[in-house]
């Protein structure tokens, strides 16, 4: 593999802007592609907002901020990905839409580059089948918030080659993250272990064992978490939590993944957490929890 200079990212609605920002910060050229100008504009705003927050905390300088922005190309032109040395797909969507995206990436991108899927639950093996290069397809599970979270699960599908894994892990480490090797399995490690805890926290709340505040404080201080499980759920988005629980429930057929009715009810009521300003807790526009 030649060295990576240009990183392609498909999808500006979710973690894409964060990945682009991080790659650019580490000196790569980043190309962020999405279907619509609106999505790209929102992506640009997300990057600017993140950089501004860092500037405020003295983490970067204004010059560095301009430099990071200048190295990101925002475009609706998928063909821009043809010049990239690795492409990370980070679209929200189901298996079918991802299969289509990968078939398209396979046609556009240089023949031997790695195509990575950012997902927590979908099958790399299955997606790889939609391409002509299943050995060069891998999963890279970034965790939100991308810029701050230190770990990336590097997910091997059935056909992912050792070289692809090694190059991907090295790439992840050049982004300043620690890569953990994971063999494809629903939820990998992080999602599989955190979801039952969140779900159990919701049951504890539902049963009146403790208040939401009490549950989170106990877990936060008891196990040195940055956030308690209920705030974690709010930050992920309760709709996302529900979706992932259902996927794991279906894939494993195990009742421990059955979504707590309280989560379902909150999603129906539009209390999705941080993004709607209210979930188990309330939040302001900057994403700070209100006490």
């Amino acid at each position: 593999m030649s060295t990576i200079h240009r990183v392609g990212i498909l999808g500006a609605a979710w973690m894409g802007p964060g990945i682009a920002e991080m790659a650019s910060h580490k000196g790569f050229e980043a190309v962020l592609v999405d279907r619509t100008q609106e999505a790209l504009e929102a992506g640009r705003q997300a990057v600017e907002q993140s950089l501004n927050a860092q500037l405020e905390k003295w983490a970067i300088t204004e010059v560095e901020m301009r430099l990071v922005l200048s190295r990101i190309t925002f475009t609706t032109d998928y063909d821009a990905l043809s010049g990239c040395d690795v492409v990370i797909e980070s679209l929200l969507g189901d298996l079918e839409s991802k299969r289509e995206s990968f078939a398209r990436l396979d046609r556009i991108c240089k023949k031997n580059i790695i195509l990575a899927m950012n997902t927590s639950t979908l099958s790399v093996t299955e997606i790889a089948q939609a391409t002509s290069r299943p050995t060069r397809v891998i999963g890279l599970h970034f965790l939100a918030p991308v810029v701050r979270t230190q770990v990336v699960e590097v997910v091997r599908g059935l056909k992912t080659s050792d070289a692809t894994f090694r190059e991907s892990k090295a790439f992840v480490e050049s982004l300043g993250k620690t890569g953990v090797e994971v063999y494809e399995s629903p939820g990998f490690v992080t999602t599989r272990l955190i979801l039952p805890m969140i779900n159990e926290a919701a049951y504890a709340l539902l049963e009146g064992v403790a208040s939401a505040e009490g549950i989170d404080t106990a877990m936060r201080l008891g196990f040195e978490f940055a956030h308690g499980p209920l705030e974690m759920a709010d930050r992920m988005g309760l709709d996302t939590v529900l979706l992932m629980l259902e996927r794991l429930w279906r894939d494993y057929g195990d009742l421990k993944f059955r979504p707590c009715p309280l989560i379902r009810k909150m999603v129906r009521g539009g209390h999705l957490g941080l993004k709607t300003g209210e979930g188990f807790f309330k939040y302001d526009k900057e994403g700070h929890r209100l006490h």
Partner: protein
Amino acid sequence: MKILVLNCGSSSVKYQLLDMATEQQLAKGSVERIGMDSAQLIHVKANAASVREVSPILDHTTAVRRVLSILSHPEHGVISDVADIIAVGHRVVHGGEMFSSSVVITPAVKDTIRCLFDLAPLHNPANLLGINAAEAALPGVPQVAVFDTAFHSAMPRMAFLYALPYVLYKRYKVRRYGFHGMSHRYVSERAAQLLGRPAEDLRIITCHLGNGASVAAVKGGHSIDTSMGFTPLEGLVMGTRSGDLDPAALLYIMAKEELGLGEAQAMLNKHSGLQGLSGMSDMREIEQEMWDGNAKAREAFEIFCYRVRKYIGSYAAALEGVDAVVFTGGIGENSNAVREEVCKGLGYLGVDFDAQANSEAPRGQEAEISRPGSRVRVFVIPTNEELVIARDTATLVRQTQPVGD
């Protein structure tokens, strides 16, 4: 005997070609933005207009090859054949406790430089990239590493140990190393020549004042103390670096502002110093603003100079007297206002400052700015780190290859 001097950063290569028969600089230049399609090469041949080229240069090896090709270019070049370059001297920032002088690069030397990545995470990896690039572009040509820390390596333990739990020194080599070694060495040697006395008998305080700034106490030709410490953050107020502060203040700020390690590091290195005090990091701009009546600029200027003066006082104590004070670096060489503010009040030490000679000191040249008969002599000496690198490289190459060029 032509020697190429390289100073490699993570995305840049600065170079000079010197003819060691005359110690003349034949050409110099830089490649910036390595890794991008819009990389830029600027090449200046002595007594000629500069050449600028923009082209994709994706790695350091390509950058060094581009440098070699322009050095041997029929019009812009200064040598007819790349084979005229008999050795390459590299600036390497951190020599740790392993290197107390310059060395010919071998695989073992490279391994040691790699071991020191932890101590200089921004610089040593880039320096090693440059070494590998030069080895690839000039196979068989001897390469020499010259270290920024080496001149300070004879500091006594009482100067380099921090009063921290001793185990931290044993475990992580946390101690004062000092930087700008080539500059302090060059100007202290020049000062000894200007004084016409052997370096062995002299006590010299050298002030390298640039965007990064440090002071060194030089006794008998060796640095016995210097203001930069474990990293180039300690000591003087700098363009964007805080210099000395109470470590507990940092801990307090980190708790209050909920700063992580990276944020705290960036705050101290990139948002502090002159920039933090006044919003301006460039001394020229600060002086301009100060004359225009900007109080913040004046305060930043005074704090900067006061810190230098304090260090001169403390190093006079460390040296048990002082024979000469030297100013160098971008600010030290060019700002007569800074020199005057620093030297103001050093009369008790024996400095008889010559304000007129100071304000008339010609740019880019050596000058004495103390009055005749001054007990402590004060000099402005433009630094020449490349010449130090080239000289060490030439000396080592002669030793290892004694049979002619």
